[in-house]
């Protein structure tokens, strides 16, 4: 009999062989080349080396994000199970963790491929980065070994170790994984906002090179984004298993898993724009022209595509929540609100995706009075967009609030007052956010930029204060019935897939813009890109590459899902009459 453990080792063996073959191939070219002309770049015959490295780096990043994210919420779920004694949580955490083993192997393999690719195709750049960051390599490798140890101990030790020890392993896995990400982030953020070097590019201070302008914002942004991404992929696994479930019990379990996964993803998505805002501020602080290239120059249209993606995320998340209400007795009371919520979300989506200027013919531009449409010009600026995104977040939160209280009836004496206070907070914050948005049209740029902070803070205040009130409001609430897990349409599961694909595409797009904003620089202002690929491609070209990467990622993740699903299968048994069964029957008992 083959166990899942042995199967996963069987997968790692060919992967290991692949890595060794790559080492051999790359080492040969890497060592042979210096005797010739020591090229700055090497090319491939059928595909641009930049596109290849782009795809490998992005796939590595996606798997790494998943491998780093899953332990975070698996640990939290396991801890909830430990504290409540509810075995379902433990099983759910284990279901998520099952996805880790193969994903970790894929991450490592893609990481090796990326390293070798850099050495072979970008030797001069690699040499420079090695010169700067050589001190970080040993800690990275040591942490990687520890990561492997804690990950496999956490996975294989499930149910075999004491719960406290197992939780400790989970904590260590998260700490080590985060530390690895922080080191790798130093390398890539240095390329955007190099620091700790003199004017000639020589290293003067390794800590300043690591702690460059966007290092910590990227660290925080990635932790949150990883959780959102990991939650979405975990939810997609739940949906995949739900659609193939043969029993009601399995349907209920995987429906729950999908819900928890997307709940985690949406919770992480909500603060993500704020982390992104901090990242943007630091980019501007480093170099205003870099920030303007990102937001107002070459890449400004990319953020329209981003708005479409995030708008779809909000739409799909709300749609899933509304469909999910079908499994909750009493939710029908709130069905009437959905059309209003949909209306607000659609309106915010439209404003957010409104471009500032339009591509128009000369005649059209004359008719409009310039490339800025008289109406779109008003909606396509940051004042309107910031207002729209804040209201979008608030509306999604209201959907979640309705879902949360769907089968509950408050029994506290101050229930009516509590509801009015919650409504008052919402109303006040909405008015304040809209007021600041309108006010932004009448002030200078610096003041306008500063207005986004009180907008964000007021929305956060609304969400936190309303949640706190809600918790007390529905303490000892009367239940209208238990949630019937599994009672949900197949469409809802496709909404989960849609969310996972959209998250992945968004991640690919933002990965592109983070690297792309350097334009014709490998290390901004220090190492110039002199290759044939030094141009910044069109958004359509970049979109095509991102789509291809996303499709390949889902092909690979399908392998992960398949292998993770094997552990739940029954042991293989020979058919009666086959040579295996005869051999088994004739075999001595003690063999």
């Amino acid at each position, binding site marked *: 009999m083959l166990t899942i453990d042995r199967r996963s080792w069987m997968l790692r063996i060919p992967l290991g062989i692949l890595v060794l073959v790559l080492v051999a191939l790359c080492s040969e070219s890497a060592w042979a080349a210096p005797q010739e002309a020591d090229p700055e770049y090497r090319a491939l015959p059928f595909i641009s080396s930049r596109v290849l490295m782009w795809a490998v780096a992005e796939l590595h990043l996606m798997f790494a994000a998943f491998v780093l994210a899953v332990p975070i919420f698996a640990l939290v779920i396991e801890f909830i199970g430990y504290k409540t004694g509810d075995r379902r949580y433990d099983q759910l955490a284990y279901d998520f963790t099952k996805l880790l083993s193969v994903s970790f192997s894929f991450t490592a393999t893609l990481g090796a491929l990326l390293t070798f690719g850099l050495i072979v195709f970008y030797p*001069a750049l690699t040499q420079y980065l090695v010169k700067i960051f050589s001190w970080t390599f040993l800690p990275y490798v040591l942490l990687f070994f520890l990561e492997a140890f804690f990950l496999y101990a956490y996975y294989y030790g499930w149910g075999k170790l004491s719960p406290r020890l197992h939780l400790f392993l989970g904590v260590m896995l998260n700490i080590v994984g985060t530390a690895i990400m922080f080191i790798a982030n130093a390398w890539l953020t240095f390329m955007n906002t190099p620091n700790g070097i003199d004017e*000639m590019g020589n290293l003067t201070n390794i800590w300043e090179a690591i702690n460059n302008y966007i290092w910590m914002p990227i660290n925080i942004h990635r932790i949150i984004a990883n959780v959102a991404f990991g939650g979405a992929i975990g939810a997609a696994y739940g949906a995949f298993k739900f659609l193939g479930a043969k029993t009601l019990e399995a349907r209920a379990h995987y429906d729950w898993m999908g819900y928890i996964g997307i709940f985690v993803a949406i919770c992480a998505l909500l603060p993500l724009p704020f982390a992104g805002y901090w990242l943007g501020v630091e980019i501007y602080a480093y170099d205003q022209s870099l920030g303007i290239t990102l937001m107002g120059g070459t890449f400004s249209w990319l953020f329209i595509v981003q708005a479409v993606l995030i708008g779809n995320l909000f739409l799909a998340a709300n749609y899933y929540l509304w469909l999910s209400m079908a499994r909750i007795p009493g939710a029908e009371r709130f069905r009437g609100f959905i059309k209003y919520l949909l209306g607000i979300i659609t309106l915010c989506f439209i404003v957010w995706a409104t471009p500032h200027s339009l591509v128009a013919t000369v005649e059209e531009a004359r008719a409009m009075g310039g490339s800025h449409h008289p109406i779109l010009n008003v909606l396509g600026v940051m004042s309107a967009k910031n207002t729209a995104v804040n209201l979008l977040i608030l509306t999604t939160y209201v959907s979640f609030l309705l879902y949360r209280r769907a089968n509950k009836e408050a029994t506290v004496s101050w229930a009516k007052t509590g509801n009015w206070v919650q409504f008052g907070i919402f109303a006040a914050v909405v008015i304040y956010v809209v007021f600041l948005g309108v006010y932004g049209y009448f002030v200078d740029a610096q003041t306008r930029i500063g207005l986004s902070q009180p907008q964000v803070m007021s929305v956060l205040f609304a969400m936190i204060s309303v949640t706190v009130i809600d918790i007390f409001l529905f303490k000892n609430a009367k239940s209208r019935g238990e949630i019937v897990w599994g009672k949900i349409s197949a469409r809802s599961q496709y909404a989960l897939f*849609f969310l996972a694909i959209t998250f992945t595409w968004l991640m690919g797009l933002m990965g592109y813009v983070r690297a792309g904003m350097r334009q014709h620089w490998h290390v901004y202002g220090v190492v110039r890109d002199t290759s044939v690929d030094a141009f910044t491609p069109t958004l359509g070209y970049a979109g095509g590459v991102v789509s291809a990467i996303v499709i390949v990622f889902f092909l690979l993740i399908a392998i992960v899902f398949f292998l993770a699903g094997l552990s739940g299968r029954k042991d293989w048994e020979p058919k009666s009459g086959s040579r295996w069964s005869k051999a088994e029957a004739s075999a001595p008992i003690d063999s």
Partner: protein
Amino acid sequence: MKQALKIFGFTIVVSVFYWYVSLWVPQKRTEPPEDIEIGANLTTEEMIPIGEEIVAGKGTCLTCHTMGDHGTGLRFPDLAGIGAIAGERVAGQSDVYYLAESMYDPNAYVLEGYVAGMPNVARPPIALTDQEILTVIAYLQSLGGTPTVTMDTQLEWQGQAPASQDVAPAAVGGNRDAETLFAAYLCNTCHTLDGTAAAGPTLQGLGGRMSKAEIYEAIVDPDATVTEGFVAGVMTAMLDATGFHEQVSASELQALVDYLASL
């Protein structure tokens, strides 16, 4: 299996939809800025169109500055008519000085209502050469004013910035060809290869005049033998200032010597 294929088909449809969205927005491929050849004998009139090209291209000025937009929410000053007002911005400063300072040391004076943040355009990543900056000044003067700057105009910041180069010297490493090393280590700042006069002796035909050993000595100890008509100590000071001796590797030095001997 059927279910898995349906899900995969759905993945392809959604991915292609987003690709379509990215095709729907304006498509612009951005090429790296090209170095513009600037002759030493350009007239002021000839400098203007070159400056205009640099403002829109390599200088990336229009990434931040507008040209004729008088809105209230601008993040950087509008450049329309700058030629007419540049000489009046700061008391005692000529328009040429003001415009030059705005590019070499942009935060020395920041116009009221705006915040500091413009980078020195003579430094990477923009890295305009002194000659390119002169043409930009000519163009900016032409926006409402009368251009007076010439290619011979001397500015106090000239010669401080690295010449236009692909990589910072430290990033060069051992696998750059000798011609690139020659530029990267700023040898071309003082030495020409075409026989014309410069701060240092021309290197044209150097291989016929000096052996490899002599060239080697001239690089590592420039004051050991000084060419007639040139001042001792200048090259030593230059090499010290740029940290040449600390950065250059043995293989690079060998490559440079071989290259110079081949001239």
